[in-house]
């Protein structure tokens, strides 16, 4: 079966489906529930979409395939939005792909522009998600063939390229960032080898036998680290008074950033190489490179917020392509969706668009509905979230502390989580004093095991 055959009438089919799309209220309601539930869960750090999806799975199985999967997909990017909220307002990245959002989002919130930042993030997410969705619906078969082209060596190259891009553009200079990258790779070493499954560098300690936990790393490095660094500053400043003024909002360049981010995320999402994280970090680095005001980055550059948020959502949408067309899930949430699809009798594969066109096209329209609902909710709730952020710092930071500790306990399912979280908080202080940025460290940590797997696969091919 030729994977690359682009159905010439797919475009006309899509148009016909659009015209005939049933505006059934129950479908809209289900997607709304999904998005809302996802958002509620995404705001709790340490809980990701998997927990929310597991909660609603029993409901899903009683539904038809299309509404059920749309519910789950709604949860998925509702949770992404929730992650962006905590990133921007509290500097706590719930997942690795929310990290790039806080580079510019947090300074904007501290400068008193929390509501605008959230609104901008929502708009960028909407742009990224919707455009990627449309692209997917029309171009997916041809694109998934392109994704097949990326074998182990190709994927390793993409990841190495992303690391290099981040190394050259993160603050601190290339040499310091290289050190951070290797430190990140080193942190990913203890635990189980991803290819052989043997334990390495655990020194027999129960705290290390699971390796360093990603949630603990994120919450510690960014959540606690941010708190500690803020507390260490000699003058306590109020959120509005003495914070450095945010750069002015240049609407056109922010919009262009969102479009660039969309393209970047879309392409990255098709190749299984840590899509969301890679795309958002790469987008931030790219925007900084292309910007005419690179000194704004780190102080709240709007382009640096729009790009990663758009690329994040675009990558999430695009990662549905390997799932539906190749049956290849690119992250744990896609894995859960694949399980659900199999149960419902939908067989992912290149012939899915032809065999089940109602499902295939209907699914994308549900994603677009979800995007629109997310936009409405995001813009509507931005004011509410922003008001929370205006509370005095002395009231907020213990709450953030407890959320980080709880989140890392939940994420690591054990005491190792909070212990590591605290350790990484102290590490963040140390790194800041040394003039190093934690961004390359996090990217290297996430990509390390994958890079290692693909390197070994390449070596096995040619040994």
């Amino acid at each position, binding site marked *: 079966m030729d994977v690359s055959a682009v159905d010439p009438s797919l475009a006309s089919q899509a148009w016909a489906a659009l015209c005939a799309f049933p505006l059934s209220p129950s479908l809209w309601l289900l997607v709304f529930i999904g998005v809302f539930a996802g958002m509620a869960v995404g705001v*709790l750090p340490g809980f990701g979409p998997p927990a929310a999806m597991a909660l609603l799975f029993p409901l899903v199985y009683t539904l038809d395939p299309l509404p059920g999967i749309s519910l789950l997909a709604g949860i998925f990017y509702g949770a992404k939005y929730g992650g962006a909220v905590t990133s921007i307002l509290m500097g706590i990245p719930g997942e690795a792909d929310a990290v790039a959002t806080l580079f510019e989002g947090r300074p904007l919130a501290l400068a008193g522009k929390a509501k605008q930042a959230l609104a901008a993030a929502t708009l960028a997410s909407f742009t990224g998600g919707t455009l990627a969705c449309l692209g997917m619906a029309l171009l997916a078969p041809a694109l998934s063939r392109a994704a097949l082209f990326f074998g182990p060596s190709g994927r390793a190259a993409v990841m190495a390229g992303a690391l290099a891009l981040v190394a050259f553009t993160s603050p601190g200079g290339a040499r310091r960032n*290289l050190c951070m990258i290797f430190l990140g790779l*080193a942190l990913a070493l203890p635990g189980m080898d991803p290819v052989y499954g043997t334990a390495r560098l655990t020194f027999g300690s129960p705290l290390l036998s699971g390796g360093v936990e990603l949630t603990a790393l994120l919450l510690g490095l960014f959540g606690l680290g941010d708190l500690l660094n803020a*507390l260490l500053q000699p003058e306590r400043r109020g959120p509005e008074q003495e914070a450095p003024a945010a750069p002015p909002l240049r609407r056109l360049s922010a919009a262009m950033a969102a479009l660039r981010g969309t393209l970047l995320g879309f392409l990255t999402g098709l190749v299984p190489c840590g899509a969301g994280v890679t795309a958002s970090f790469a987008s931030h680095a790219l925007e900084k490179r292309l910007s005419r005001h690179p000194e704004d980055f780190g102080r709240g550059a709007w382009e640096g917020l729009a790009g990663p948020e758009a690329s994040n959502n675009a990558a999430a949408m695009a990662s549905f392509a390997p799932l539906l067309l190749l049956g290849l899930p690119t992250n744990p949430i896609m894995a859960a969706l694949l399980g659900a699809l199999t149960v419902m009798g939908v067989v992912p594969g290149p012939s899915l668009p032809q065999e089940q066109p109602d499902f295939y096209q209907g699914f994308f329209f549900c994603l677009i509905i979800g995007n629109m609902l997310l936009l409405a909710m995001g813009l509507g709730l931005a004011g509410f979230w922003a008001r929370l952020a205006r509370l005095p710092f002395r009231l907020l930071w213990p709450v953030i502390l407890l959320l980080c*500790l709880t989140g890392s306990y939940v994420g690591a399912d054990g005491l190792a989580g909070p212990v590591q979280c605290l350790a990484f908080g102290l590490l963040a202080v140390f790194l800041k004093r040394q003039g190093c940025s934690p961004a390359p460290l996090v990217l290297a940590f996430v990509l390390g095991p994958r890079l290692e797997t693909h390197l070994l696969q390449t*070596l096995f091919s040619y040994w």
Partner: protein
Amino acid sequence: MTPLHPIFHRHALRAVLALAGACALLFSPPALSDGMPGPGLWARLTGAGLLLCAVLFPGPGQKPAHAPAAVRPCLGLVFSSLLWIMLLLPAGWMAATLLSGFCAMKSAGCSLKESLLIPALLCLVLEAGMVHLLQWPMPEGFLWTMLSGA
């Protein structure tokens, strides 16, 4: 926080990198197993890279901060975290959250009313969301079970 002695400040990260690299090289499994790349290959590559980085690191690039930093809230944060960690399993997460929240808010300079109210509120919200809605098992504390069961 008293500034680190200048020499420590300059070489601290270098020492960390070198130590990490040495550990990776010394304690990881063999690089080749049965003649094929083994579990230790990547670890040793990373270790070698770390040692190289330790040499290449350009130093912190700025003088250590001389202004006196606000240490008390910082220590309060660390102490509250440690308290939470130590209390979690024996006393259960609710007690741990309440107590360490109280300590943290006191060290942040909040009033008594705020220090009691806000941790309690947080506890309620998290309890409702995590334990009842998401059915996530949080530790109940073995001291309670011992006291009530024994």
